[in-house]
């Protein structure tokens, strides 16, 4: 590139670049810088205060031999897969139902989206009441005459993850529905006309024509839902506190408890580094795939 020729590329469009500088600095220092710092200190035996006293992989060995961490990972996997699939399915179904030009659509939309306006803490407390055996669902159904009815997931280690799932989906499905509905409304009317002329039933049109056309909408929803799954913490604290026993522990809670409660920063950093690695393992291939595709176009 000749210096006497066109202006230097770095200074092209400089006001925009200047305006972006604070964000770039934040990203570099806060996100990347602090992440690297965390990774480095995860190889030390820092307790309450960070100390550069390296112990190799000892924190990771301990992490992966801790039953509570194993349970946390297992729970996150179960919650993650079920929550992703069910939220998408329920969201799409509700969006399709709302799309039938029904009356009071605005009202339904508000009701469906409303739980999203509540924080996870409120959601957790609400579901704690609903699922409480002494005055919640079990009490009401027993009051209706089914005295043998037992439904107490909050105190059953095998079912507690379903309680988390119910509360999580109740809170999150509304947003997915609304995004999907926007996607459905974006579909060209002519597609519908064509399928009607061909005599294709509506459900088939949705499943085989509309669904593939909504790929970008699904991508948006998947990113939003996944982010919510990885950072799952406050719902657990509000609904179960990780109990009964350690049956509903999740990785983010492990990180918090070890960093602050148990005063073992090294262990907490090792756990959060594993969470970072898990996120990168999903995002990096995705990003490479996207970039590769752009170049071909």
């Amino acid at each position, binding site marked *: 590139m000749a210096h006497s020729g066109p202006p230097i590329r770095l200074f092209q469009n400089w006001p925009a670049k200047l305006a972006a500088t604070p964000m770039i600095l934040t990203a570099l220092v806060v996100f990347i810088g602090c992440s690297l710092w965390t990774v480095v200190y995860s190889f030390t035996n820092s307790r309450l205060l960070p100390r550069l006293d390296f112990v190799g992989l000892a924190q990771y060995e301990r992490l992966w031999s801790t039953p*509570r961490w194993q349970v946390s990972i297992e729970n996150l996997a179960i919650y993650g897969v079920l929550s992703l699939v069910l939220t998408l399915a329920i969201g799409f179904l509700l969006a399709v139902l709302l799309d039938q030009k029904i009356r009071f659509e605005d009202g339904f939309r508000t009701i469906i989206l409303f739980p999203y306006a509540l924080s996870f803490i409120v959601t957790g407390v609400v579901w704690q009441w609903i699922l409480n055996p002494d005055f919640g669902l079990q009490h009401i159904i027993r009051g209706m005459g089914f005295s043998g009815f037992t439904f107490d997931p909050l105190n059953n280690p095998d079912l507690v993850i379903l309680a988390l799932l119910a509360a999580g989906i109740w809170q999150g499905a509304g947003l997915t529905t609304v995004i999907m509905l926007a996607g459905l409304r974006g579909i060209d009317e002519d597609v519908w006309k064509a399928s009607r002329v061909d005599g294709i039933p509506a459900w088939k049109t949705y499943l085989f024509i509309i669904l593939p056309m909504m790929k970008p909408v699904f991508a948006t929803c998947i990113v939003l839902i996944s982010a919510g799954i990885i950072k799952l913490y406050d719902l657990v604290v509000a609904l179960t506190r990780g*109990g009964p026993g350690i049956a509903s522990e999740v990785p983010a809670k492990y990180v918090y408890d070890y960093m602050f*409660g148990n*005063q073992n920063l090294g262990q907490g950093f090792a756990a959060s580094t594993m969470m970072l690695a898990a996120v990168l393992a999903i995002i990096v291939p995705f990003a490479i795939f996207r970039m590769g595709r752009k170049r071909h176009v």
Partner: protein
Amino acid sequence: MQNISMRRLLAGAALTILPFGAMAADLEVTHWWTSGGEAAAVQELARIFEEQTGHSWVDGAIAGSGSTARPIMVSRIIGGDPMGATQFNHGLQAQELVEAGLMQDLTEVAEANGWRDSINPVSLLDACTFEGRVYCAPLNIHSPQWMWTSLAAFEKAGVEPATNWEELKAAAPALREAGILPLAQGMQGWQTALLLYAMISGIGGADFYNQVFAERNEDALNSDTLKNIFAEYAIARDLASGGNLSDWNMATNRIIEGTAAAQVMGDWAQGEFALAGKTAGTDYGCHIGLGGEPVIATGGDAIYFPVNDDEAMTEAQRALAQVILSEEAQVAFNAAKGSLPVRGDIDLAEVNECTQAGLETLKAGNTIPTIDLVMSSDSRGQIEDLTAEFFGSSLGAEDAHARFVQIVQSEM
């Protein structure tokens, strides 16, 4: 009038090490005393502090338990926004902060007021001492090794009220028959761990407890005594099954209602009985060490003073340290909170039989260090996770014992 206040001022000046000339300071005190009895106790302390020193007490209560409050306190101190004074439990919780030079040295105050002579047991002062210097002021004593029983529940089941662990086990079938939960146990980790510690000291005895936790003696850890305690611990899990309890005061409430027979919990449970208008001896029974070996751990609260560069503030901190150990504050605070005073040379008037039993045990010197004194927060957290997992699953007693030994041995 002027004369009296002049004399007070002189007395104050004589007591404090620094000249009492600087301005009055606002001293922010953070703590997690938020339940009814606790809040009343804090008010007493604040009142005495303001009356005696002329400084003002700015209350910094943090709702939630210690595990919620401690991270907030630590991050404020580390983050360069220290409060005037803060509560921690006796022990290792604040040790690293002391090592890092973030806490005020109170040695001069302690020596001038003869803390070493008046504090009983003296181990409380040792817990505040680091490399020969004193860094905190002990405030009260709480002990976790208590079994509380509902006399009404045993009456309903038609059996004699249990006075120890063996009797509770024997009464369990009759209690179940009458629809009464034999053992009310909150399922949170610190509560399940509390039960285990109480069983180790109550069934194994004080020496055994010390061998396990303080010396981490290999023979004691692999002894039949400890294996047997884990077998008993598994029985406790059976006795508690069906309770579905989480918070400790919910469990205590089952004892108050008489729908559960016994709970193993610290002496802070007495506050709940008092609020419900129950009387020791006629409504509920108390048995130190599950009715086995009567030893109590002398845990409790201490006040730490973060270092700051404001001279008036430093002076106010020293003044508060002195007030905390004064007879007036010890009596007023501990009477309201239901805890025991840290000074051996004062008497609490009109205490009930449970507190009396605690005081006698203390006087007799039957004490063990709290778990905070002998184990780091890290190991304690792991034991809590293990016991919570144990209670929430069908993990075998032998496996739990093996993992417990591993945790204790990995303690640095």
